[in-house]
């Protein structure tokens, strides 16, 4: 399928916070609680539309376990967006955010858009991290913040699409050099009717990443 842009996303955060479930909810619109734990990385993809342009999100769902970090880090390279996920019912997953962020800052693109997600907000009766704390952390670190639930699908769509919107805006503002693929953005085929946001002129074949 043709797309105007392809964005590479990574999903990071502690094991069991619901990264794979969020991905599945976004790509397949379903919640599968007995999904296998992730070893290494898994992939998902979905088309979305922003500003009337088809955009393909290629999503890398990484393993959360600490001992795999040296490996999973190598997957950060060239991501345009990241969902940094914690579990609102488990305090420690929130406490580890700083170290995840540091990791991302060190191994990913400086322009990467990071969205902080407090997942499992359907379990608010077991909440261990308040909404305000999440908001505060995001503010301090310049992240966009949302609470979401992979189970009820609340805010899942929004989280992925809002991130894409931010990236798209960065392209429009010229922050990204879209011809440099290490930014996690690929320019796809020119779409008919596209009024051309400047970037369309350098379009090329979608290539092997479809």
């Amino acid at each position, binding site marked *: 399928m043709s797309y105007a842009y392809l964005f*590479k996303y990574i999903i990071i955060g502690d*094991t*069991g916070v619901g990264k794979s479930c969020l991905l599945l909810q976004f790509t397949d619109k379903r919640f599968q*609680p*007995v*999904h*296998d*734990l992730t*070893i*290494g*990385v*898994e*992939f998902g993809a979905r088309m979305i539309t922003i500003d009337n342009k088809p955009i393909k999100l*290629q999503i890398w769902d990484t*393993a959360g*376990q*600490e*001992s*795999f*970090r*040296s*490996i999973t880090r*190598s*997957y950060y*390279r*060239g991501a345009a967006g990241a969902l940094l996920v914690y579990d609102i019912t488990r305090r420690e997953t929130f406490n580890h955010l*700083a*170290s*995840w962020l*540091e*990791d991302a800052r*060190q*191994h990913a*693109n*400086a322009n990467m858009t990071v969205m902080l997600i407090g997942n499992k907000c359907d379990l608010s009766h077991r909440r261990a991290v308040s909404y305000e704390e999440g908001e505060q952390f995001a503010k301090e670190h310049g992240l966009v913040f949302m609470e979401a639930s992979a189970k009820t699908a609340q805010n899942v769509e929004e989280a992925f699409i809002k991130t894409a919107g931010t990236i798209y805006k960065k392209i429009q503002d010229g922050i990204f050099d879209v011809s440099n693929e*290490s930014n996690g953005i690929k320019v796809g085929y020119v779409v008919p009717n596209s009024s051309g946001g400047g970037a369309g002129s350098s379009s090329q074949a979608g290539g*092997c*990443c479809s």
Partner: protein
Amino acid sequence: MRGGDVAAAEAGSPRSPDLYDLSDDSDYAAAAAASDRTVMRTDPADRGSEETARVDVVYEKERVTIHPSQYGSGRISGKLRLFLQQGSLFLSWEPNEGADSLSTSSVGVEIEKYRNLYTIKALPLSDVRFIRRYTPTFGLDYIIIVLSSGLAFPPFYFYNSGIRELFATLKQHVFIIRSDDDPNVFLVNDFQDPLQKSLSSLELPGVASVANAMSRQNSLSFTGSNDESRHGATSSMSQYSSKQKHKSNDPGRDLSIQVLEKFSLVTKFARDTTSSLFRDNSGAHAYGRQQHEYILDNKATDKHKNQYITPEKASTPSATIESDPLPLVWGKQRDHPLSVKEWAAFLDPEGRVMDSKALRKKVFYGGVDHALRKEVWKFLLGYHEYDSTYAEREYLAAMKRAEYEAVKSQWKSISATQAKRFTKFRERKGLIDKDVVRTDRSIPYYEGDDNQNVVVLRDILLTYSFYNFNLGYCQGMSDFLAPILYVMEDESESFWCFASLMERLGANFNRDQNGMHAQLLALSKLVELLDPPLHNYFRQNDCLNYFFCFRWVLIQFKREFSFDQIMLLWEVLWTHYLSEHFHLYLCVAILKKYRQRIIGEQMDFDTLLKFINELSGQINLDRAIQDAEALCTIAGENGASCIPPGTPPSMPIETDGGLYVQEDEVL
């Protein structure tokens, strides 16, 4: 990989001489001797006792930093030095006193404890194989030092720049050249490449005639003595070699030469073709034809010819993905699984396995009838001795059951109040609880809510984490245990089988990932040996870390095949029949199969990783095993020497420092 351990291992354990003893080649003898000298040299950094040797520092750089893999936010800053002593150049790296720029103090404390592990006191440059320089457009420049033993130090990040001066200084003191293939790789002490050596010294009179000679040799090893190919102790083989004049009577040595010859031929094809592959597409086709002939030449028996022309039963999805048109089937045709009747014939009246080697061979080629797995796996995993009797095994089972219950009661007896003050236990249990419900739940045996088998999985893993507290629990273990429990249908027996497997593969789950790094490194060496063009491609495209094979290796292809297939594959691997590291040959076989697509589509790291991930469920298992068998046979001793001692599933090498001891917060 921890630098300190590497250095310790390097200095402490003398190299196995046969690591180098590939041929009579004098260069090799010299290289081996040189490295022996290196090992025997006294440690020049032992400054207390050293007066005679003057130390001249020729390069020094502050803020050369290690980012230890297991601490996301930690880094250890230190001083990198080059110094001369008694005419030889050494490299040292010493951490600074005190912690620096750490995000949290608890991490700081952790790092503090281990900073000395990374210290390199005095690494002789003669032990270095190459240094790779990384100058990312975004981020810090760093280097990776790879030793001739195949081990690598963790990356050194240069916070104050200084890489250029480092290489300039190196150039003044040691023989260092830039690699032709990759301008960022600097080869140190570039002793001649064994393959090139073998090619030039063989003076191949022409492919055709060599191929003929090879088919003769191959028929020797493939028909009469395939079983023995690793040891070469068959009559036909010694007959062959007795015609040659050799200094030693070691049949292994003769074989290794022979293998080298075989191998160099394959390599020559591969080399010839990559150059043409890059020139135009018809080159790739020529490659196909050439190899084609080669296979036919070697496999001119009717049986194999039949197999060769059998059209691939290409199921629809795999047809699109398996693009390599070469029916690269050289391995023996897969056999039927070990049957109940055959199994009975292996046992003497008391229940001893009379010919364990024949049994392993049988299983290697055909697997085991499912009804027998419960019994046979215990032998393959090393839980039962082959020469044990029925009675002994029964007794053992009873003893082990009691022992299991004893370990299990250790955590069973932890009360809720005790658990409150036992964070490590709570975390570990929490993690295991979370993971067992995410393991093979689509298999009927583990399906559904409140499945008792899932509870048993949990109990075994938690008990294991007490039984082997240092290793603890790590994700991936449940992937190994689930099929074992499914086969054994018994908690205690499953536990002991799992524990036996972890004897071999526990290092996969070490916090510092050393077991994984060792295997990925060995894999890279095997690809270099068996598919140089692919190796070069990976090198040029920054894929040499082989992280794209991480999942394959960590859980031995568990996620790549169906549950039924994985039971078959594992029993094949566990025979250790052709090689303990057959799984690595399997990796090579699969990569080789897709190399045309990988290179043709110019896959970068990301694309490759995704491609490999998506091979899951697409790989033809029998074919892959057959290809791997062929590669393993062809690589012979050369292949074995790509794999450093102690690489899992080999038993860890004994070190006083305890190379495999977990030193971190374990869960």
